[in-house]
Every structure is written in C-alpha cells, then in structure tokens.
C-alpha cells in the first residue's frame, strides 16, 4: 500500500461497517452475543457476520433455528436477566412471525412492570426492495416499529451510520431496532477504525440548502442527494436532511430546516400511505405552520406489495426522478 493510500480516508462498505460495529461491541461488552438465523456458520446471508464465529466462538455467535418468536423471545428474556443481546432478524419482513414478541413483550415489558425490567437488546434487520426478492423479502416496515412506545428505531443510510448506530444501539439500555438496507451493502463511506456512536434521536443535515428541505430516510437519502443535484441545475437550492432516527424523531432539526427553506418534501422507500413521512408532515404543520409557504410533498412507494418483476420493481421504488418531479410540482416549475 502506498503512503498516500495509507493516509487517505478509511473507506469501508456498509456490509463491513456492520461487521466492525458488531465486533467492537462484542469486544467491549462481555455479556453481548449475537443470535439469529445463519449468523454463525454462514456469517449471515448478507455476509456481515463473516469471521465473527471464528473470532468469538459459538457461545457468542449463536445460530438459531428458523424461529423468529423464539429468537426475539431469547433476546427479551436474556436482556431482562443481565445480557445485552444483538438479535438478527434476517429480513425485516420476518417480523410478521414475531410481532407479538416485539410489540407485546419487548416494547411493553418495562412499562408494564412499572420500570422493573430493563431491556438492553439490539435488533439488526434488513429492509428494502431492489433485489427482485418480491413481496415478502423487500419491505420497509419501520413505521410499524416507530408506532410502538418502548422501542427505538434507527435507519442507517450509509456505512458510517451503520457502524455508529449499531454501537449506539448496543450501548443503549432500551430495545433498539437498526433497520438496515440491503441495496446499500456495497456502498462505501469513510468509517473511522475506532468505536464511535451516531447519537440516537438526532437527524443530520447532509446537504445545506436555502430553498427547499428534503427529509429522507434510509437509502432514500442518496436519491434525495441526487435529486438535489438535479434541482441545483434548475436553480433550486435544496437542503437534504437524513432523518436517521425515526423513534425518537428529531423534530428540532426538521423545524430548523423548514424555518430556513419554507418548503419541504419527505421521502421514504416504504409505502406512502401511513408511512413515517406522514408523521413528519404532521409534526411540521403543528410546530412550523407559520413558516410553511407550500403544502409538504410526500414521496413513497405506491399502495401495493413490492412486485417481483424487475420491470415493475423499478417503477415501484421511489427515486431521484420522482423526488425532482414532486419538488417541481410544489414550486410550479
């Protein structure tokens, strides 16, 4: 390796940032372990636990049966009794198999027990369309989770956030879901080698602008940035806010952006109807109505299951072009 490369930014793909975050948590926390389907011998179907079984052994990298109720239950029971489990739900769609364990047990246990139980459990799960995996392996269900008092929900849009959010989640004494994106696995970003946290509950302004705010979640941040570039050429100076944490949601950053730009659009990959974007819109009209010069636009997937055919899937997933079109509509240009 040349000196120049050595001194250059430390670039890592999203998939390796996940591995590094989990590895550092396991090194830091003796009572942390990973449990889930194909996490050990296989190193995850997405590859992000590769090498960890050899490094930490099967006491701490635990292959489970295909039993999501059992897996989440394992996380809840272990977290309540002195462990800090990192639970893997391979595809977010599989939360359907364990909605009771998530919604009725994990999310509510602390409250139902009058604060008696503490549940430091992290759930890593993979969302998103784009791989032609069809209706049951491509969904974005973050709004379900954000609707449950008792859990926190993070959406890393890039490798830096993936690592930092996993570390923040694992250090938090609450159930935290890190909703990752499968199309982002190869995406590179600068990732420091040391441990760091991406703070839970804080959005990030990833592009400053003065004329229009785009609030984007997960992978849509990159589509929003691409849209902002196109819009710049049309003379529209867009601010792009990576929502990052949807529960808790950072309304402060969102309101500050609106006060600057007076116009906004929210975008997520999930179905538009009932998506988290609606919550953002509601909060902004409550808290910053007087600063708004136009209705807030929403971009999300259409109201249908995720289609299989590549031809249809490309029509389904929101992208930069649709963001640009909606922004233009709002501006009447």
């Amino acid at each position, binding site marked *: 390796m040349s000196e120049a490369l050595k001194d250059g930014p430390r670039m890592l793909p999203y998939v390796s940032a996940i591995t590094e975050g989990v590895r550092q948590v396991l090194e830091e926390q003796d009572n942390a372990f990973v449990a889930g389907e194909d996490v050990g011998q296989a190193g995850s179907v997405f590859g992000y636990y590769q090498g960890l079984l050899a490094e930490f052994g099967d006491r701490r990298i635990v292959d489970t049966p295909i039993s999501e*109720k059992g897996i989440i239950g394992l996380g809840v029971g272990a977290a309540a009794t002195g462990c800090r489990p990192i639970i893997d739900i391979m595809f977010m769609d599989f939360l359907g198999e364990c909605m*009771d364990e998530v919604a009725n047990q994990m999310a509510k246990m602390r409250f139902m027990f009058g604060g*008696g139980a503490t549940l430091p459990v992290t759930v890593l799960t993979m969302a998103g369309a784009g791989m032609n995996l069809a209706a049951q392996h491509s969904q974005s269900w973050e709004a379900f989770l954000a609707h449950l008092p008792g859990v926190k929900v993070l959406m890393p849009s890039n490798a830096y956030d993936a690592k930092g959010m996993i570390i923040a989640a694992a250090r938090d004494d609450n159930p935290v879901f890190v909703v990752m994106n499968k199309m982002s696995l190869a995406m590179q970003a600068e990732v420091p080698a040391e441990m760091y946290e991406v703070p839970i509950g804080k959005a990030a302004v990833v592009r400053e602008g003065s004329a229009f705010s785009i609030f984007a979640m997960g992978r849509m941040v990159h589509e929003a940035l691409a849209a902002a570039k196109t819009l710049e050429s049309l003379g529209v100076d867009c601010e792009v806010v990576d929502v990052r944490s949807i529960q808790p949601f950072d309304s402060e950053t969102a309101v500050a952006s609106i006060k600057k730009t007076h116009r906004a659009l929210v975008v997520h990959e999930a179905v538009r109807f009932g998506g988290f974007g609606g919550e953002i819109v509601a909060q902004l009209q409550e808290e910053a109505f007087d600063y708004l010069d136009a209705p807030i636009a929403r971009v999300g997937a259409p109201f249908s299951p995720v289609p299989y055919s590549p031809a249809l899937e490309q029509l389904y997933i929101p992208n930069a072009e649709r963001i640009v079109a909606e922004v233009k509509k709002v501006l009447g240009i």
Partner: protein
Amino acid sequence: MTVAKNITNKTLIDLHSCMVRIRRFEEEAGKLMEDGKIPGALHLYVGQEAVAAGVMAHLSNKDQITSTHRGHGHVIAKGGQFAPMFAELYGKSTGYCKGKGGSMHISNMALGILGANGIVGGGPPIAMGAAFSNKFRKTKQVAVTFFGDGASNEGSFHEAANMAALYQLPCVFVCENNGFGEYTRQTNHQAVTDVADRAAGYGMPGVVVDGMDVMAVYEAAEAAIKRARAGDGPTLLECKTYRYYDHVGVRGMGLTYRTDEEVDAWKQRDAINSFETLLVKQGVLTAKKIENVYARANDEIKEGVAFAESSPFPTAEDLLEDVYFVGAGS
C-alpha cells in the same frame, strides 16, 4: 396421596401455607372484582394451587419464572406479598408495577418474576431467553415457564421448547392442563390427551402428574428442576388440574361450557383438603394449626386490602414514565 420422600415437616407446612394463601387471596380478589372494587379482568387460580406451590418450593428468588394471565398463584408462591399485589390490582402507585401492569402483568424482578402475561403463549420464549442467559452467564439459575393446555397450541411454545432442548437450557416447561383453553374444552382444541407427549418431539423428557396432588407435583418438579440446574436440559412437566372459577372472574359470564357436576367432581379431589387430611393423619398439622394458617392469611388480606385502598393512584406525571429507560445508557 403419600408424603414425598426426604421432605421435612417445615416444607410440608410451607407447601400447605402457600396453597392456603393463594386460595384465600384469590377468593378475596374475586369478591373485590365482583364488588367493583378491582377494575379490569381477573383470571383466578382457585383449584390449581398445588402446581404453583409444588413447583416454586424448589426455586429461589434468583430463579426466574414466566407466568400467565392466571398468574396470582405463581406470584404468591414465588414470594409475592399481598399488599403490593392488591395495590397492583387496584391500580395504585404502590403496586408491584406502580399500577401500570395490573393483574395480567404483575411482576417483580427481585423475586425473579418475569411477569404474568396477557398473551397466551407469551411466556415460554421469554423464559427460554432467561434460561439462555443463565447458561451464558454460567449461573446455576433455572427458568420455569408456566402455561396452559391452550398455550401449548401456540407457535411460541413450540419455538421455545425446540430452542430450549437444542441448547440444553436450564428451563422447565410446566403445563398446567386445566382442561380448557379459555372456554374451549381440551378435546376440542387438541388431538392429544397428554401435552407431555409433545416433549418427545422436542427431544426432552415429558412427565405427567396429578396437578391436584401437591406431593406429586413437588416430586416431579424437583426432578425436572434438578435436571435443569445440573445442565442436563429442559423438561416438559404436565400437571393435570382444574380451575374452579370461570375463565374470568368467579362466576364469569355464565357460559354453559361445563356443568356444575363436573366442577363439583374436581372439588372432591381438592388439593388443599386432601393435603390437610394427609398432614393431620401424619401428625404434621392439627385442626387448630390449620385454622391458624387461614387466620394468618386472612390478616394478610385485611392488611393488604387496607394498604391498597389507602394508597394513592398514579398521577399524570407517572403516565409517560417507564416507557423507556432514561439515564446513562439511553
């Protein structure tokens, strides 16, 4: 009924007292619910006392249990005190859960009670997780999950049982087969007669005992819990029992899903009565001493109810407390 081997008189007296305390607590709770003093729904444990008493006799506060919607008996047998229990049922801030959980979520981590549970089948995965934790942390704790014949049809039970056996966890699955899943008779909700038959399918021993015989439960639970503590894996222990009261409350909704004759026939085999007969015959207890046990339970009830009634309700400030852990690590 015969006295268990190697059992001390103190243990026999404790088992009796435990069952009486559960019976009296539940009778009183039922009355208070029907009088409108306790809000919500109570699922009462009357009739099943031998199971909670016989199993819990082998557990310390460090061992964990998960309970069911019919959970008061488990909580009492695990060391629960009447005052914070009644306070919880009243929805008062001095209750075990500060009035936020109520009957179906009554819990106490210091006593190893990982909650009653309003979801049928909610407990087994959590107990399996606690057992995983016990093994991971290399403690000698055991986790016991109580569930009914109804819950044995839930996928959550299946997944928890499979994983507990796969990982050889210190976990005991206690099925309280009271013959009904809510209002549906066992013969109408599963094809097996003995839920314990399913144990073979998970690779763990399955044991059936008479759940109206506290000595039988005590001995079978001892073996299962010893096995779990020794690291030899889980057991499915099925206790055949019966609930005298309705699914909810005492007389419940008056549904005609069973006959009075059937209930009376089970009462003839009442766990407490038959145990008292045995203990008197063995010279362990006298009629007078038994009377004292009831008197003490009644005093405890009086004090507990007075405590609950004089306790404050939680306030608006409490509403949003305890949703999340707040502090370092949040």
